[in-house]
């Protein structure tokens, strides 16, 4: 099934070739993601941020697809897409502001870590409920098509999300309305403790595209070039009016599901060790060193530079003031209702009377 689907893909789409001239930049972005991931896990352990969802193992899938997009394309992410945010030029400080929920956080301290929204970068607001972004990406693509904007929407989700209601509705609507959407599934082998094999009997996830009359493609998500090409092809097809594509990037989640998770309860360390042999960041690193594009030294410098950059970002974010105590009453509606105004005023009074402390 996946084969048939892949061949469907091969036959269409005029993809541009991979931008080899930007390979070091791409690598740097992967390293930045890795560095941030490690730092953020520590921050969480130290209680400096409340929660964190790591992406280790999924850098090439995210960054390869990010590079294949146009800046005008709209991204509908899940919660694990830090690498993708970096490709979009979102600064480390902005991400850490969000993890802390301080006054510079664009989500105004309202969301858990990793649930970003960066309108300027067309990085749409993430939520926790699994799969909901999928139909939304389709609707936005239908809207872009109606306005004849030459863009695509792309939505990121996991293997678990293929079981969601929105996966089913989203792919079906996208097919029927030939929406210019890319469905990018990062199959990292796990939905928390449920292994991919128990999520569905379907031999591949890409093969599910058939059920909606759509092409489906499996790619090695540790191969940044393969990911890039698959997304370029899907994008070209969407822009040409030929509709959506489902891409399954096969990766492995190296870390816990989140900082609340203890994977030793459900998977042997051995499996992780084996998967780490295909670590996308290290694969690219050794390739670049092998091909003399980097030396061990210039590579170390990259890591050091980026570690320093992240350290500065953390410091700056931690020195940013907290959110304003009354701000959680804002943005429920464009204009507050009288009910909300009254509640805000009564809360304010409790603060001013000293009944509550901010």
């Amino acid at each position: 099934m996946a084969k048939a689907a892949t061949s469907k893909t091969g036959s269409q789409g005029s993809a541009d070739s991979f931008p080899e001239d930007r390979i070091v930049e791409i690598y740097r972005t992967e390293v930045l993601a890795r560095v941030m991931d490690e730092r953020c896990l520590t921050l969480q352990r130290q209680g400096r941020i409340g929660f964190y969802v790591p992406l280790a193992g999924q850098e090439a899938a995210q960054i390869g697809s990010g590079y294949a997009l146009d800046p005008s394309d709209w991204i509908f992410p899940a919660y694990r897409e830090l690498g993708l945010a970096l490709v979009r030029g979102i600064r480390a400080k902005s991400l850490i502001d969000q993890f802390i929920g301080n006054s510079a956080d664009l989500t105004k301290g309202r969301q858990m870590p990793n649930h970003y929204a960066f309108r300027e970068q067309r990085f749409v607001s993430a939520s926790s409920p699994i799969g909901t972004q999928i139909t939304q990406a389709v609707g936005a693509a239908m809207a872009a098509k109606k306005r004849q904007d030459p863009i695509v929407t792309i939505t990121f989700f996991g293997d678990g999300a293929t079981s969601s209601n929105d996966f089913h509705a989203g792919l079906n609507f996208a097919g029927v309305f030939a929406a210019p959407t890319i469905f990018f599934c990062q199959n990292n082998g796990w939905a928390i403790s449920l292994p991919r094999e128990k999520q569905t009997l379907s031999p591949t996830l890409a093969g599910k595209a058939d059920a909606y009359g759509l092409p489906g493609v499996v790619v090695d998500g540790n191969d940044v070039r393969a990911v890039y090409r698959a997304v370029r092809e899907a994008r070209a097809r969407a822009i040409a009016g030929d509709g959506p594509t489902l891409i399954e990037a096969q990766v492995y989640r190296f870390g816990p599901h989140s900082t609340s998770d203890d994977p030793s309860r459900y998977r042997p360390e051995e499996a992780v060790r084996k998967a780490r042999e295909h670590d996308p960041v290290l694969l690219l690193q050794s390739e670049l060193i092998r091909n003399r594009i980097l030396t061990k030294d210039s590579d170390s410098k990259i890591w050091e530079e980026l570690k320093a950059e992240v350290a500065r970002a953390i410091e700056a974010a931690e020195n940013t003031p907290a959110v304003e105590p009354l701000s959680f009453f804002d943005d429920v509606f464009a204009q507050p209702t009288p009910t909300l105004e009254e509640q805000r005023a009564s809360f304010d009074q409790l603060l001013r009377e000293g009944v509550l402390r901010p």
Partner: protein
Amino acid sequence: MTELTLVQAVNRGLRVALSSDPDVLILGEDVGVNGGVFRATEGLQKEFGPERVIDTPLSETGIIGTAIGMALYGLKPVAEIQFMDFIYPAFDQIVSELAKMRYRSGGQYPCHVVVRAPYGGGIRGGLYHSQSTEAYFAHTAGLKVVIPSNPADAKGLLLTAIHDEDPVIFLEPKRIYRSLTGEVADGDYRVPFGKANVVVEGTDVSLFAYGAMVPPTVEAAQALLSEGISAEVVDLRTLVPLDEKAILASVEKTGRAVVVHEAARFCGFGGELSAILAEKAFYSLKAPIARVTGYDTPFPYALENSYLPNPARIAHAARAAARTQ
């Protein structure tokens, strides 16, 4: 001015919006070629084309999910849910996504979708073509909830909804879709949100109602008048935002309140109204606050007339309140 039924007024409102704003579009099941199972979208696909009046596959999840995406992109989708009873496959998108999008993105992503759905009993629809679950939506922060009771309001509130900046759940009383007509102004006009309508003025007891319960409540008020009881009837029009001022003003005048709705009583919207009065009009109240509502059972088929509040039940409760000194 034209004499129209409520469903015709909805149709005219949609037509005005589609004509005047290219970003407005309609999507739902059977809304296009068929013109909607209640004919609310009759003729619109013919006039505006299948890209603006879209027949969707059978998935409310898909309808609301894609409508949200369209709204994020800048369009103004008006989604039709065929019966309110079938909104639940989209409940996750409505309460988790639509209601919270502006808030969770720190105001970056307003998300203006109008969700239209016929609601309520009285058409022999049984369990699944009769429900009134407005309380679910009124309890969900971030949603506006609008329920017109007559053709003129239906059109004017719908146009306000379509041009609002927030998500609106727009519930249409299907029982009175065609059973009454009223004068409706031509063209574009707006009935503001958050302004209740005092349909009948009175001094002895306040009757609060909305949607399809307004006509029987007015009927009850008329019956009471012949007994010498002067009942005021307040049509709430919008549950969120709520016109608390008008509600309190009425009870401060009459000292007695009866809340009417056809939804089940327990945890229904009437509870909220009672609570507001019991907190803020406490010193004006001269009698217990009564609720005349559907019963706490699923909606029955053969005995729906027993289930639904009617003028007799409303008058009975109002009479008891008015006679309390």
